[in-house]
């Protein structure tokens, strides 16, 4: 294509996008001269260039538009929504012609007399005061024309002199326009409908310019996108080569090479950064067309909508930008059409008439978060629920169990976007599954939050770039694979005998994870290749979330995490659904990148998609103030509770299987005898049906706590009031609005363990002469009572005290311990000072000090806890507490 022409096309396309946005702004603030000047200037430039390049059709259009804008600028005319619509239509027409130009390099046949006439009429409209009056009375037969230009008697539309008695089309339009506003709008709408469906993507668009503000002068150079891509590829190669070099030098220990290599390494990193930056574009570029879309759809729906945008300058990779454009447009349009209520309903609900759509973008830990929020009515929860049940997306039972939030997420499910759903859900959610799958295609996630009567917020999270991702390198029986970390939510170590054991149902693997069953896939199953019999039994489960599906992938081990450069698959391999690309690792080997979406499809053969019910729980897990409690009945209808984190499993046992031996109740459980204790204190086991049992397991030993009925799991801030409710109770707390007795699990554990525990410790005595002594300092009685039995059960001799002064008293008395476990935040004591003092104490300075804290790592550093203590364990993490104690004691033993 002619260079001049292609430059013109690229430039004009950009200018028009700006004009679009500016016009919408202008319509709302007609007094803003700067905006108008900017629009005028841009249109003027387009007109001038068209004339220069010999594009008469475009020139005529731009000229007509410019004339009207000139009238606005000279304050001869006041801009109305109708006239702005008209200009927007002419811009659309220009775009249409431009598209044609792009494809064929010539202007399309035909003319734009109709719209030019409208434009001319509009610019004339107010000037001729007489026209509206007269024409309104009898528009057709009147021959009262307006002023010159076009001259009376010559009709540019008909392209000939007017016959006597004939009225020029332009005049007619002017008359209609002036007489009755909506008519023009009607015409505009018709013109819109006649117009071809949206503008195809501009191929010549090769911009590097970060232009959020059109008036800002930044020197730029136009670079072909292809050369940038090439540059990026080469930098990726460089990164890989550097990684290889680094690995070689690490092995050879060649000092001479090290320094230049370090330099190479840092230069490479800078280069990579720099090139990445050239690919970055402000997200505002993808938003440019949104004001126009919102304006148009709001007009159509007869609503008033205000679109607010923030964070336009947030930059992301242009490849991502291109892919995110369409889903974003869809979501904004959706918010406008269905999210916001009509004005009168809004007013009735006490909201301002104009609806708000807030679009914002910001960075968050290597990701870009885009939020689309409206202040509309929120999602119709009951309708979605009903629809989903009707569609068979979920069962009635599932629907009842789902929270509103979970129901809302159903709009992302494919089943809800069928044609019939359009009517019954009034369109909301249509195509949302497409939006989701488009976003997931680029490794992003989308979530929503809807509050009834207050609005809906969609949150899209997408990676900054597609070229480089951080990945988990895993070993499996059929080789190494990379798993993008974005999809990974947790890693679970699964052992044959431990708490997390992979079980099989009819050949299907599942894992009990907390309170849900997780479908597990083995790569060798998906690949259809028999895994060689490996002796490696302990393996990891990589838990991934794709959309609503949560599943685990069984791998032998995790070997590394690495920033990998994604390389596209060879054509011959793209048909394999479970891979999304391949890459070269630092050691030079090639590995395949697993596609979480592809694997998910393999997992859910059929429609058995496990709803992600544990997400809410996981979210609140991070909230350390709340504790998940398991509510149940035992011996009466007063609710009782235990902390859920202590419960390993919930089981139902056939009462006939309960055996008695020496006055104790046992049940055969997983090939061992598990002692059973009833939570009511008396052995009131059920005689028929199923006996619900809470199983507590520690180090392979289990105790069952039988209850009458499991009621619920609640998450609440625990406010325990201590009571002397006798053995077995810590106190009571208000849970779900009811006073609930919180049971002392330790009491029941020791009851159950009793003789069995003695036998166990006797067994251990062969290796370890005496149980290790632990001093536990914690001001919180609830916590002390929770931890002490656990530690005792793990074979330690525990002394639990509530203050450091008691500790010093024990010190004075010459008592010795193997390890001291202390809380850090105590109201009257300071754990860190305590630890520092301990370090200087003559008797106890050699005892390892372990801190319990709910604080984050950096806060711990701030208060000096890291240096004062041997190790720090999170308060809620009982498993790692025991393993850390074990580890510390062992290393202490080795050091001594």
């Amino acid at each position, binding site marked *: 294509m002619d260079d001049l022409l292609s430059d013109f096309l690229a430039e004009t396309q950009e200018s028009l996008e700006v004009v679009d946005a500016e016009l919408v702004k202008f319509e709302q603030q007609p007094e803003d001269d700067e905006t108008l000047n900017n629009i005028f200037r841009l249109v003027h430039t387009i007109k001038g260039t068209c004339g220069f390049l010999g594009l008469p059709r475009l020139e005529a259009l731009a000229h007509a538009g410019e004339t009207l804008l000139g009238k606005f600028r000279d304050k001869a005319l006041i801009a109305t929504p109708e006239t702005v619509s008209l200009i927007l239509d002419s811009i659309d027409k220009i775009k249409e012609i431009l598209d044609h130009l792009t494809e064929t390099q010539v202007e399309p046949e035909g003319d734009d007399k109709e719209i030019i006439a409208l434009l001319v009429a509009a610019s004339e409209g107010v000037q001729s005061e007489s026209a509206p009056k007269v024409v309104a009375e009898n528009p057709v037969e009147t021959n009262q024309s307006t002023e010159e230009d076009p001259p009376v008697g010559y009709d540019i539309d008909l392209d000939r002199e007017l016959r006597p008695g004939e009225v020029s089309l332009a005049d007619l339009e002017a008359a209609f326009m002036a007489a009755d506003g909506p008519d023009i709008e009607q015409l505009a709408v018709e013109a819109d409908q006649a117009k071809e469906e949206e503008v195809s993507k501009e191929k010549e668009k090769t911009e590097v310019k970060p232009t959020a503000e059109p008036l800002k002068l930044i020197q730029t150079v136009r670079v072909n996108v292809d050369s940038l891509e090439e540059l990026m590829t080469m930098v990726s*190669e460089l990164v*890989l*080569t550097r990684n290889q070099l680094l690995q070689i030098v690490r092995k050879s220990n060649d000092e001479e090479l090290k320094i230049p290599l370090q330099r190479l390494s840092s230069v490479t990193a800078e280069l990579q950064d720099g090139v990445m930056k050239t690919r970055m574009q402000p997200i505002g570029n993808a938003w440019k067309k949104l004001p126009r879309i919102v304006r148009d759809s709001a007009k159509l729906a007869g609503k008033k909508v205000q679109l607010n945008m923030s964070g336009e300058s947030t930059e992301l990779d242009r490849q991502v930008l291109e892919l995110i454009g369409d889903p974003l447009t869809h979501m904004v349009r959706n918010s406008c059409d269905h999210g916001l209520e009509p004005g009168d309903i809004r007013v009735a609900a006490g909201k301002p008439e104009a609806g708000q759509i807030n679009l914002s973008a910001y960075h968050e830990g290597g990701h870009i978060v885009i939020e689309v929020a409206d202040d509309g009515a929120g999602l119709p929860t009951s309708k979605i629920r009903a629809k989903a049940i009707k569609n068979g997306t979920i069962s009635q039972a599932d629907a009842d169990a789902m929270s509103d939030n979970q129901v809302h997420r159903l709009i992302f499910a494919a089943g809800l976007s069928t044609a019939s759903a359009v009517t019954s859900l009034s369109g909301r959610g249509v195509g949302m599954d497409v939006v989701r799958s488009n976003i997931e295609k680029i490794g992003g996630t989308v979530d929503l939050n809807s509050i009834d009567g207050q609005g809906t917020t969609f949150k899209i999270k997408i990676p900054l770039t597609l070229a480089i991702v951080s990945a988990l390198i895993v070993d499996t029986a*059929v*080789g*190494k694979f990379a798993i993008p970390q974005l999809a990974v939510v947790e890693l679970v170590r699964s052992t044959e005998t431990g708490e997390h054991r992979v079980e099989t149902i009819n050949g299907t693997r599942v894992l009990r994870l907390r309170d849900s069953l997780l479908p597990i896939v083995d*790569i060798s199953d*998906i*690949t*259809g*290749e028999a895994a060689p019999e490996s002796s490696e039994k302990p393996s990891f489960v990589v838990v991934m979330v794709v959309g609503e599906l949560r599943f685990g992938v069984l791998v032998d081990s995790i070997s590394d995490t690495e920033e990998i450069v994604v*390389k596209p698959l*060879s*054509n*011959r*391999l793209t048909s*394999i659904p*479970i*891979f999304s690309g*391949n890459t*070269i690792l630092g050691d*030079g*080997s*090639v*590995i*395949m990148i697993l596609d979480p979406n592809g694997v998910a499809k393999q997992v859910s053969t059929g429609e058995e998609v496990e709803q992600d019910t544990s997400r809410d729980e996981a979210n609140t897990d991070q909230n350390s103030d709340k504790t998940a409690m398991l509510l149940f009945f035992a011996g009466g209808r007063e609710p009782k509770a235990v902390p859920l984190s202590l419960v390993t499993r919930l089981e139902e046992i056939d009462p006939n299987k309960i055996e008695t031996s020496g006055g104790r109740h046992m049940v055969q459980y997983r090939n061992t005898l598990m002692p059973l204790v009833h939570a009511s204190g008396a052995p009131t086991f059920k005689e028929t049906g199923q006996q619900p049992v809470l199983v507590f397991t520690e180090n392979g030993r289990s105790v069952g706590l039988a209850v009458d009925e499991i009621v619920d799991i609640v998450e609440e801030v625990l406010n325990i009031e201590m009571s002397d409710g006798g053995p077995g109770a810590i106190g009571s707390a208000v849970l779900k609005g009811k006073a609930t007795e919180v049971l002392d699990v330790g009491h029941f554990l020791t009851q159950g363990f009793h003789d069995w525990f003695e036998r166990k410790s006797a067994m251990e005595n062969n290796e370890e002469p005496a149980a290790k002594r632990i001093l536990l300092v914690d001001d919180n009685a609830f916590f002390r009572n929770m931890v002490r039995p656990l530690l005792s059960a793990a074979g330690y001799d525990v002394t639990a005290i509530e203050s450091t002064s008691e500790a010093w008293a024990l010190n004075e008395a010459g008592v010795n311990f193997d390890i001291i476990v202390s809380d850090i935040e105590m109201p009257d004591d300071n754990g860190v000072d305590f630890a520092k003092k301990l370090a200087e104490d003559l008797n106890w300075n050699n005892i390892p000090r372990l801190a319990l804290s709910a604080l984050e790592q950096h806060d711990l550093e701030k208060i000096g806890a890291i240096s004062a203590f041997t190790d720090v364990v999170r308060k809620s993490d009982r498993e790692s507490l025991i393993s850390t104690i074990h580890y510390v004691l062992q290393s202490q033993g080795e050091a001594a």
Partner: protein
Amino acid sequence: MSDQKHDRANSGPIREFVTLYIGDQIFGLPVSDIREVFHPRAITRVPLAPPEIRGVLNLRGRIVTAIEVRTCLSLPPLEEDNASSMMAIGIEVDDEAYGLIVDRIGDVLQLPERDCEAIPCNMDSNWQAISSGIYRLDGQLLIILDIQRLLGVEPSTEMAA
């Protein structure tokens, strides 16, 4: 495959072929198609890939798809102990790098264009599908492989018809 050269056939153009062996059979590939010859090392197997794809490997920072020519010819793969002598011929089709795994590489032969003969119609259909011609050499027959067809055609596809 090179009509262009056919046009100038009266001057008796010469074509250059790299010869390669699969078992005892000698094959030829036009030199112009070949980018390089290398030892295939550290091939990563790709699960679920078509059978003739042996895997992917890293050749100087580029990911190359290794194609087992034996499988394309419906022959069993080479015994493991002979595998170390295997060679790969690097080619590029549609901007993608491929490595053709062969038993060993022979000489470069210069043969007159006009001596090339059509493939006998009774040859195995899989073989026919990926060959473009045949030369009678002293004591053996040289089958010219067609790279496009070798990469584009599944061995099972019936091309003989």
